[in-house]
C-alpha cells in the first residue's frame, strides 16, 4: 500500500503530522501510523490547558491488541481536543489528516518547527519503515 501524506503538513519520526495555523497547530497521527495500528478503538487525549514539551507523550491511542503513545511534535499548550474521537475513534482510520485530528495547541517555540520533516522526506521515511515492517 502506498503511504499517503498531506502536502500541507510537517511530520515527526514517530509518525505524527502537524498543520500550522498562525501561532497554533493541529496534530494527529499519519496514514502510515493508523494503518500499522489497524482499527483504532480509543484515543486518550489530554485536558485543555495542559502543557507539554516537544516530543513528550500527550495521549494514548489504542487498537484491540496494542496501545501506543502519541507525542506532541512541538512544545505547547493544549487549546482544544477532538471530542468527536470519543464516540467515533474510527475517524482516525478513515480520515487521519482531517476529521481524525487529535489536538489543537499553542506553539511555544516556533524554532522547533525546523526539527520536523517535509512531506517528501516523510514519505520516503515511512515507506522505508513499511518495508522493514514486512518480511
Amino acid at each position, binding site marked *: 500500500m502506498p503511504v499517503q501524506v498531506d502536502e500541507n503538513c510537517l511530520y515527526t519520526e514517530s509518525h505524527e503530522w502537524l498543520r500550522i495555523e498562525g501561532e497554533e497547530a493541529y496534530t494527529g497521527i499519519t496514514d502510515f501510523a493508523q494503518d500499522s495500528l489497524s482499527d483504532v478503538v480509543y484515543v486518550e487525549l489530554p485536558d485543555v490547558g495542559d502543557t507539554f514539551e516537544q516530543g513528550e507523550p500527550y495521549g494514548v491511542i489504542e487498537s*484491540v491488541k496494542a496501545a501506543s503513545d502519541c507525542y506532541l511534535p512541538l512544545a505547547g499548550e493544549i487549546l482544544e481536543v477532538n471530542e468527536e474521537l470519543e464516540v467515533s475513534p474510527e475517524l482516525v482510520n478513515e480520515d487521519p489528516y482531517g476529521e481524525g485530528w487529535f489536538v489543537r495547541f499553542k506553539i511555544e517555540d516556533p524554532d522547533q518547527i525546523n526539527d520536523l520533516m517535509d512531506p517528501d522526506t516523510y514519505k520516503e521515511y515511512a515507506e522505508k519503515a513499511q518495508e522493514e515492517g514486512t518480511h
Partner: protein
Amino acid sequence: MTEPIIYELSVSGRCGAHLPDLDVPPSDLPPQELLRDDLDLPEVSESDVMRHYVHLSQMNHGVDIGFYPLGSCTMKYNPKVNEDAARLPGFVETHPYQPEASVQGNLRLMYELQEFLKALSGFQAVSLQPAAGAHGELAGVLMIRSYHESRGDTDRKIMLIPDSAHGTNPASTSMAGFEMVELESDERGNVDVNDLRKHVNDQLAGMMLTNPNTLGLFDENVLEITRLVHEAGGLMYGDGANFNALMGVTKPADLGFDVMHFNLHKTFSTPHGGGGPGSGPVGASKVLADFLPGPVVVLEGRKTEKDLTPTYRLEMPAKSIGRVKAFYGQFGVIIKAYTYIRMLGAKGLLETSKGAVLNANYLQAILKEVYPLPFERLCMHEFVLEGRIEEAPDVQALDICKRLIDFGIHPPTNYFPLIVPEALMIEPTETESKRMLDYFADTMEQIAKEAREKPELLHNAPVNAPVRRLDEVWAARNLVLRWQKEEGTEA
C-alpha cells in the same frame, strides 16, 4: 449455538432457592432513606439455572475435553482426587478467624506444604499467602524493596527484566515503585550477558528472570547472571511460572535466586477454573526470609501424635512486608496441591518434570520441520515456533490457531513472547499421551498443507465451534459490558 442471557429467562415472582421462613419476631427496619427501592436480579427456577449453566459449560474447551497446549500455562490434567480432598467438609466449613486450636488440621496442611515447597526449591522459607502468580510476584518485588530499604540502601531503583519476560514482571515492577530496564536476548535465547554487564551498578535493585524462560529455554548462563547481579548488590527474582520443568531437576535457590513465586495452579496441578482461583506462594532465601508476606504457619515445639495443645501457629515474619490479602492464602487450592505432592513424592515429581520436557522436545523435533524454529536447541517443558509458512504469506499465527480449534485442539499461546514474530508457544505438559502428541503434530502438518493449498480454510476458521470469529473491534468501541433490558420490553 447461542444461549439466552440468564435475565432473558426471568419471569417475575420466581426464585430458584429454598429458604427458611422467619422464625423470630421481626424488628423495625432502618429508616427508608437507608433502604433500596428495587433490585433487578433474574427471577428463574432452579432447573432453569442448572440447564442454563450446563448449556454454557458445553460451549467451553477444557483440559477434560481435549488437548490444551497453551504455552506458559501448564494445562495438565487435574487429578480428580484433588477435588475430592478440597471438598471435605472439615476443610470447607472452617472460618479463618476460628481459634488456632480448633483448626490444627488446616494449619498442619499449610505448614507441610510450606515445607514441601522449601524442599523442592531449596529456599529457606515459604509464605502461602499470595493468591496468584502475579500476586506472588508483587510480594517478591516488594520484599526486594524492603530489603534494600532496611539497609538504608535507598538509591536502588532499577529492576532488570529480559525482553522475553511475562507482562506481569514489568507491571509488578512499576507497582512496587521500581524502574524497569529491559535486557536483550542473545542468539541462543539466553539473556545477553554483555547487555547485563552494562546495567549492574549501585542503582541496581534486582533482576527478574523466568528460567526456563518463555522460549522454553533454560538460561545457560544462569550462574553467571546471578553472580553478576549479587556482586552489584542486587537480588534475583525468579518467576516460577515454568517450574513444571524443574521439580527435582534443580533447585532455584542453589542457582542463586533469592525469591521466587510458585504457581500452584500450573505446576502442582490445581485446575485453573476458567481464570482462577490460582495460588502464588513465595519462597525466599536466607536474606529475604524475614521479609515474606504473612502470616505464615510455624510449628511450635515438637510435633506429637496425640498432643491436643496447639502445635501450629500463625505468625508474621520478623520484617514482613505485611499482608497482601485478607486471611492466609487460597486454602482450597492449597489442599489440592498438597494432595498432588503427597501422591507423587519426590520421585513422581521428578518423573513429572522429565515427562513434560520429553513431550515438549518430541513435539519440537517433529514440528521444527514444518514451522520455523527460531532457536535450534533442546527445549525444556515448552518451545516457541514461528507461525508462518513460506508459501502462504497471507497466513498468520492467528489463522493457524483458529484452524486448530476445528480439530478439537486448544490453540497454543500466540504472539508471545514478543521477541519472536508470529510466535506460537507450545506446552504439551507431561499428562498427554504419545497418541495425542502425534495427533497434534499431524494436525499442525495438515494445517500447513492447507495453508499452501486452501488458505481460506484457515482464514475462515473456526467453523466447528459454538461461534465463529468475533468482532473484537466492535466490542472495544461500543463497550457493552452488562446486560440491560431494552426500553419498553418486559424482561
